[in-house]
C-alpha cells in the first residue's frame, strides 16, 4: 500500500506537485495518469525518497521507504530506464544490486529470463535499445520479488509483444496481492491495465476512482438520434429522464440515457429512427476533457485525442 498525504514539491517558482493526497491499495493495479509534466515522476521519486518533498509525507507498506530493513523486497521501482552505467553488462548491473540484499544470482538469472534479456545479459548496457533498457529497468524492479511495484511509464519504448507482456505482468502481480502503481500519459494504456485510476494535472489530483467509475463519471455520454419526429421524441425522452438538445431540426443529442434506453423509448413510442449513435465519449475524450486545462505544452491546434503511440 502506498499512502501519500499532502505532498508538495516546487522547483524554483514551478509547483511540480501541489498538496496531493491519495492511497494506492494492494491487490490491484492503479494507473497514475496525466500529461507529460503533470507531476507523475516527481511524485514517484518522492515516494521513493529520492526527491525531498517541501511538505507532506509518503509511506510505502506502512513506513517511509528508506526506513524498511529490506527495501528491495518491499518496493521494486522503475523510474528511469536509462539509469545504468553504459559500460557495465546487464547481468553485472543486476548482480551488484542483488548483492546489497544478499539476493542469489539464481534470482538475477530468473528476472533476466522473464524480461527476455537472456541473449544480451553479457552485453554492455550502453549498446541497448530503448526497449532493452526498459526491460532491464523492469528486471531491476522485479529483482527483490517486491510487495509493491512503482513503474514510471513502463511500456515506453516496448514493442507490441512487450507492451502486452507488461499488462499481463501488472495484472498477475496485483492478483498475487501486490500493490502495482504505474504511470502513463496514455489513457488507453491505463484503461487496458488498471483497476483504479488517479489522474494528475499541473501537480493536482483531478480524479481518483475505479477505471469504470472514471469512464462513467467523466464521460457525459451522449446519444445522437436522427428522426423526422424530433419534437415529440424529445418529450418522450424527457419522461424517461433523458435530456435532449436539438442541434439540427431532425437531430437530437440525448444525455442521461444510453443507446439501448433511447432505442427502447423510440420503439415504445412508435418513433421512426433514421440514425442512432453513441457519441463522443471514449476514455481518451474523457481524459482529454479532464486534463485540458492542465497540459503543460499544447500544440497550436486543438486535437481531440492524444496520439495513440503505445
Amino acid at each position, binding site marked *: 500500500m502506498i499512502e501519500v498525504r499532502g505532498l508538495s514539491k516546487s522547483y524554483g517558482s514551478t509547483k511540480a506537485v501541489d498538496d496531493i493526497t491519495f492511497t494506492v491499495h494492494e491487490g490491484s493495479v492503479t494507473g497514475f495518469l496525466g500529461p507529460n509534466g503533470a507531476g507523475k515522476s516527481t511524485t514517484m521519486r518522492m515516494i521513493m525518497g529520492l526527491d525531498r518533498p517541501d511538505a507532506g509525507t509518503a509511506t510505502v507498506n506502512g513506513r517511509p521507504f528508506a526506513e524498511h530493513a529490506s527495501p528491495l523486497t518491499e518496493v521494486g521501482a522503475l523510474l528511469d530506464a536509462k539509469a545504468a552505467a553504459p559500460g557495465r553488462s546487464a547481468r553485472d548491473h543486476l548482480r551488484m544490486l542483488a*548483492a546489497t540484499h544478499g539476493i542469489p544470482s539464481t534470482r538475477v538469472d530468473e528476472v533476466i529470463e522473464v524480461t527476455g534479456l537472456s541473449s544480451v545479459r553479457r552485453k554492455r548496457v550502453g549498446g541497448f535499445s530503448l526497449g532493452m533498457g526498459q526491460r532491464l529497468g523492469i528486471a531491476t524492479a522485479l529483482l527483490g520479488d517486491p510487495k509493491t511495484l512503482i513503474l514510471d511509464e513502463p511500456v515506453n519504448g516496448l514493442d507490441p509483444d512487450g507492451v502486452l507482456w507488461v499488462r499481463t505482468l501488472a495484472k498477475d502481480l496485483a492478483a498475487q496481492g501486490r500493490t502495482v502503481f504505474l504511470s502513463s500519459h496514455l489513457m488507453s494504456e491505463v484503461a487496458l491495465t488498471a483497476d483504479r485510476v488517479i489522474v494528475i494535472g499541473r501537480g493536482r489530483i483531478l480524479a481518483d476512482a475505479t477505471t469504470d467509475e472514471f469512464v462513467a463519471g467523466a464521460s457525459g455520454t451522449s446519444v445522437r438520434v436522427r428522426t423526422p419526429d424530433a419534437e415529440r421524441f424529445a418529450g418522450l425522452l424527457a419522461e424517461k429522464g433523458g435530456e435532449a438538445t436539438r442541434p439540427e431540426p431532425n437531430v437530437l443529442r440525448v444525455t442521461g440515457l444510453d443507446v439501448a434506453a433511447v432505442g427502447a423509448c423510440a420503439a415504445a413510442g412508435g418513433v421512426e429512427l433514421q440514425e442512432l449513435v453513441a457519441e463522443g465519449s471514449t476514455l481518451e475524450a474523457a481524459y482529454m476533457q479532464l486534463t485540458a486545462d492542465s497540459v503543460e505544452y499544447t500544440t497550436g491546434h486543438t486535437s481531440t485525442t492524444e496520439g495513440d503511440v503505445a
Partner: protein
Amino acid sequence: MSATTTSGYPTADTTGWALTFGHAVRGEWIKIRTMRITPWLALAFLAITVGMGASSSAGADPAVVTQEDLATRLAAGLFVAQAVLAVLAALSATSEWATGLVRVSLTAVPRRSLFVTAKAVVVVGISVVLTIVGLVGAWAFSLVRYSGSGTTMDLADPLYLWLFLGGPVFMALISTMGLGFGVLMRSAGAAVTTVVALAPVLPVILAAFSVDVIVTIRELLPASAGPALMGQQPLGGSSLPVAVSILVIVLWGVVPPLAGVLSLRRRDA
C-alpha cells in the same frame, strides 16, 4: 520454489533477503570492480608507486644513504600516486550521477549514511591493499639494488613500520576525501579537478612561495599533512607538530564524506 503465472513471472522465497552493512559493501565492491576504468587506475597506481619508489631509492649513493633517506625514497611514488586513488574514489561516486544510476542505487540502499559508508569501506580496502603491494614492490626492488652493498632494509626497523602502516592509512584517508568530494560535487570534472589539485598539484606550486600565509596553507593541504603518518616530512617541509599534521590529514579524510552524507540527505538525488 518458484511458481509461475501467465506472464511467466517467477515468485521467490525472499527469506533472508535483507539490506545489511556487509551486503551493501559487497554491492559496492561489485560496482567499483565492474567500472571499466578501475583496473587501469589500479595499474597506474602500482606502476607509479613501484616505479618511482624503486628509481628514487636506486638513485641514492649506497655509501652515504641513511635509513631515513631510504624510507622516504621508497614512499616517493605515493606523492604522485595518491592522485590516482583520489580520482578512483571520486569517480566511484560521480559515476552514479553521470548515468542516473544513483536513483537505482538509492532504491536498493536508501539510507544515505550506509550508501556512503559502504563506498568508503570499498575505496579504503582497495587503497590499503594497493598501497601495501606498491610499497612492498618498491622495497623489493631496492633490496636487489642494495644487495651486497652492506645497506640493509629491515622491515622490523620502526622507520619501515611507520611507512608500511602509515602509508596505507594516508592513502585510505586520501581516498575517502576523494569519495567525499565526489558525493558533494556529483560531477566527475569538478571532483577530479579538486582532488588532483588538493592532493599533489597545489603543494608543489605553493612550495615555490615562502610567504608565511602560503606556507601555512601548503602545510595544511592533505598531501603535506599526510606524510606525518609515515613519520616523514612533506615536500618543502612542514613546521607543524606531527600530531597536528596527523589531525589535519584525518580531518581531510573524514569531513568531506560526512558532508557528502548531509548533502545527500538534503538534496534531491
